């Protein structure tokens, strides 16, 4: 597999590390990870870095994950790059909002590395 560049957006540094570890366990290697602690910071990363995959929490202070998604599309940042939401919010309504905002995948916390593999690898391979 060629090098994958992933942006992980979560206000928890611990959760960013767990997501990174899960991506490596899923077989994404070599992997380059960019981290952001909010949607605002995530947009700044996308203005200066090319990425192949974006994983974002929803419930974050300052700019939440859904607004981050809308801004990515509105500013035409990372066109064609798959976005996967990783969040504790798991109702159909939340999934629907994420998909309508432009997400291609949805992972509910808590999660296993196997679930990350199942939902992320097909998107990376198809991109």
């Amino acid at each position, binding site marked *: 597999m060629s090098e994958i560049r992933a942006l992980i957006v979560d*206000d*928890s*540094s*611990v*959760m960013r*590390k*767990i997501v990174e*570890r899960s991506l490596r366990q899923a077989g994404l290697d070599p992997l380059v990870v960019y981290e952001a602690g909010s949607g605002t910071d995530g947009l700044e990363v996308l203005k200066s870095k090319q990425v192949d995959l974006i994983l974002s929490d929803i*419930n*974050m*202070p300052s700019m*939440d994950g*859904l607004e981050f998604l809308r801004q990515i599309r509105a500013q035409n940042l990372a066109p064609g790059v798959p976005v996967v939401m990783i*969040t*504790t*919010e*798991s*109702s*159909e*309504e*939340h999934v629907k*909002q994420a998909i309508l905002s432009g997400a291609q995948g949805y992972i*509910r*916390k*808590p*999660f*296993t590395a196997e679930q990350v593999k199942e939902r992320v690898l097909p998107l990376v391979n198809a991109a």
Partner: protein
Amino acid sequence: MLLNGVRKAAIATSRGGSGYEMERTMAISLRESVQQVSDPRNLDASVEEVFQMMLGVNCRRDPGPQSTEPESVTAVVGFGGLLSGACVFNSGREAAIRIAAHLTGMEFDEVDDTVKDGIGEICNMLAGAWKGKVPNLAANCGLSVPAVITGSDYKLHVQAPEFQLHHAYRFEDTSFEVTIVCDGIQ
């Protein structure tokens, strides 16, 4: 410590998008399903799920004496929307360090910012897993971002809760407590 701050944040979250309209239209159904919401088995299942999936360990209900460590770590995640209240995680220093170590694969010798962050995330996932057990609650109840408090000799006060679940669990040879406090159901 009062819950007003985390509650306001959770209410703001739940009113984003179309959630507020759903809150209004589904108000009767949650009141009618209060027994399901307060079912203590949902809390046990949520704790087991989070610890097995994120830490790879089992934990069990523990009716025995709880930690008497002077230093404790408390994380609070507020609920807002159809149900208002909070999920509260509390443990001694040793349990907090061990949980963070399992979660991150790192070693800690003190309750530093990473440990606090990890405990906040555990509380966040417990709150999300618990509300996810009741379909109406999952869609119509928002969560605040976690607040983490460390120190000693402090108490959590809730005025006249609708119901409260308070369970203690054993994890390896340490213990922790999880409390669900509901102070309003619409």
